């Protein structure tokens, strides 16, 4: 088991962190998805091809490296389809037809994966799909939809050009102002069958947990920094045990969350037997801890944290949106119960 980053992985982290600090600071995050930032993410850092196999033009890295990157994009609250494209890439590396991977690796294609909790919401006839997806993450920003669809030979994964015919996209305003969703209606939209639907749920759990780890880390950093400069009653608020002890508890959650994310990513790469339990653990622990830390970071800011112009609510809302992204969080606990054969 490997819970500590290698030197290369640390370098990757530093590079992504430095890039995002400069290219996507929080004032810019409020402006939403910027394709130019994505172009640079690919051009300068090659992130879009990170987990694409080398034969399709990618770097062939594993979940451990993807987790390192998602932690940073999470900490930066990077807007746009980065997470969902990572989800789609995880899916695309596990189907027969891998052609889309090249476009993703080159940064030409942003793909949105729709993976509704309760099976396929679409039906296909070999060349076109019909059906409605109620909530597609970054559905307005992505160019290609990757989704499961029911056909004659069972459930397969299909790819649909979101700018093509038969597609109606409706933007949904979301709690999280930094990342939107769309309702997508498909009425005979041309679709390409990629192969049988792969089993990727565990890896999505790990990827999302990595983003959540970043969100909680950045939220804790922000409130710790504020506690060192904000004064009340003549003392820095961080010197009051009422604040200090809460921050210490938040730190304990962060340490445990990071340990779990490293473990789950390692399991995805190296120990598939451990992956299901590790993935369920990651969502069950990290999703909750992320919201709790983001919540307390907001509350400890006092009144200013309640204003729209302060950034605290951005972390709080991303944390809540992420917590329920894959369904009511109890599903991860139920899965743990099943895996532990309780």
């Amino acid at each position, binding site marked *: 088991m490997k819970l500590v980053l290698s030197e290369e992985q640390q370098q990757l982290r530093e590079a992504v962190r430095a890039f995002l600090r400069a290219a996507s600071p929080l004032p810019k995050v409020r402006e939403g998805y910027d394709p130019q930032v994505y172009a640079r993410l690919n051009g300068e850092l090659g992130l879009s091809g990170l987990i694409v196999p080398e034969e399709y033009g990618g770097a062939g890295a594993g979940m451990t490296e993807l987790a390192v990157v998602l932690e940073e994009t999470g900490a930066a609250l990077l807007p746009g389809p980065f997470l969902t494209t990572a989800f789609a890439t995880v899916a695309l590396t596990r189907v027969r037809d891998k052609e889309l991977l090249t476009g993703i690796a080159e940064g030409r294609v942003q793909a949105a994966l729709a993976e509704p909790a309760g099976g396929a919401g679409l039906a296909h006839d070999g060349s076109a799909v019909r059906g409605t997806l109620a909530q597609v993450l970054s559905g307005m920003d992505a160019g290609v939809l990757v989704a499961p669809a029911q056909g004659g030979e069972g459930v397969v994964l299909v790819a649909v050009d979101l700018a093509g015919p038969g597609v109606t996209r409706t933007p949904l305003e979301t*709690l999280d102002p930094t990342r939107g969703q769309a309702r997508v209606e498909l009425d005979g939209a041309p679709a390409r069958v990629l192969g049988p639907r792969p089993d990727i749920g565990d890896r999505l759990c790990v990827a999302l947990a990595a983003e959540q780890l970043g969100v909680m880390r950045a939220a804790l950093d922000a409130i710790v920094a504020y506690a060192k400069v904000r*004064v*009340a009653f*003549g003392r820095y608020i961080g010197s009051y045990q*009422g604040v200090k002890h809460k921050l210490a508890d938040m730190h304990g959650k962060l340490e445990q969350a990071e340990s779990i994310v490293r473990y789950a990513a390692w399991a995805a790469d190296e120990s598939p037997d451990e992956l299901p339990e590790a993935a369920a653990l990651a969502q069950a622990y990290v999703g909750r801890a992320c919201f709790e830390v983001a919540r307390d970071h907001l509350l400890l800011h*006092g009144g200013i944290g309640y204003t729209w112009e302060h950034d605290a609510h951005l972390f709080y809302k991303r944390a809540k949106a992420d917590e329920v*992204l894959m369904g009511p969080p109890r599903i991860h606990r139920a899965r743990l119960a099943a895996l532990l054969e309780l």
Partner: protein
Amino acid sequence: MNLADYRRAARAWLRDNAPTDDSHETDAVTRAKDFMARLYDAGYSGITWPQRWGGQGLTQAEERAFAEEARDYALPTYVFSIGLGMTGPTLVDRGTDAQRERFVRPLLRGEEIWCQLFSEPGAGSDVASLQTRAVRDEAGGDQWIVNGQKVWTSVAHHADWGLLLARTDVDVPKHKGLTMFVVDMHHPGVTVRPLQDMSGRANFNEIFFDDVTIPDEHRVGEVNDGWSVAVTTLLHERLSISAGVGMGGRREHPASVEALRQTVDTGDPLVRDQLVELHIRTRALALFNQRLAQETRAGIFPGARGSAAKLLLAELTMFQADLATQLVGPEAALAGHPLAQAISVAPGMALGGGTNEIMRNIVGDRVLGLPPEPRVDKTVPFKDLKVGTQA
């Protein structure tokens, strides 16, 4: 008139005069002012306030009787709430006779709207560290010149007058260099800017003062004795908040047990148990509030124990919005979903009227009688004190 008759008369008046719907055909403030004038003329505004200044000079008993009769109506008194709950009582307690004569009756009749100007960006929980300056200018006819910024001001965009706490001496400790004023909100140099909260709504304002003059006759209390006046105001604020705690509307809350049982899967025993937890906490706090109310009626003043109720309400509000979104799942993250609004406004209960940390200090110090923290800010001259946000 005995109390039963008083109550009967109030009931009849309300039946005939209370607006039954909240339709927005005419301007809300105009309608509110119109209603307030009728309320005053009927003798139901300022029930316990002194007759000399326009009140009715009656007792808590009559006031309570009217409040109980009014409970089922949504009276449009919101824009007057600061004046009636805080600034008016402060003027009655601490104003000069000239100020009472000038301000109290129009306030009670809804002719003039008031706001309260204490909090600043750098002075939240620690109100007395505020930095807005008032400098005396005797050349200009014994007046004061005010510069600074206030925040978290309700109804300021409608207000005619504001009760302003400002610093008049920086060479003494922070509590000892403050003075209270009545400021004309229509004066040039007063800028009111709506402040958007994290849910996207603008229920509060920021106020900027740029060389605003105030005649000395609008000073409330002695120069540099403003903190004691502010304590009066804050006491009234606490009373009016705790009177409202636990009142009305909670059953219609989208994160209440009643609402959730309609929308979530109660076939799942875990979901059911979470609703039981929410029921337990909701009932526990509701019963505590009812006990405080019964004690108050029996003459036992709850004092700082009301802060415990406020702390518990803040925690319950956060808990239930958080729980509800977890139970509902992805849909709760859509901006149009009632729970998205609930999770966005939930922190407000913990931040308005004192943070949870301040409430715990109050309960610890005043209810449990625990020893105070050592204070570093009570003796240092204000100009040497660390305030606001700084490294």
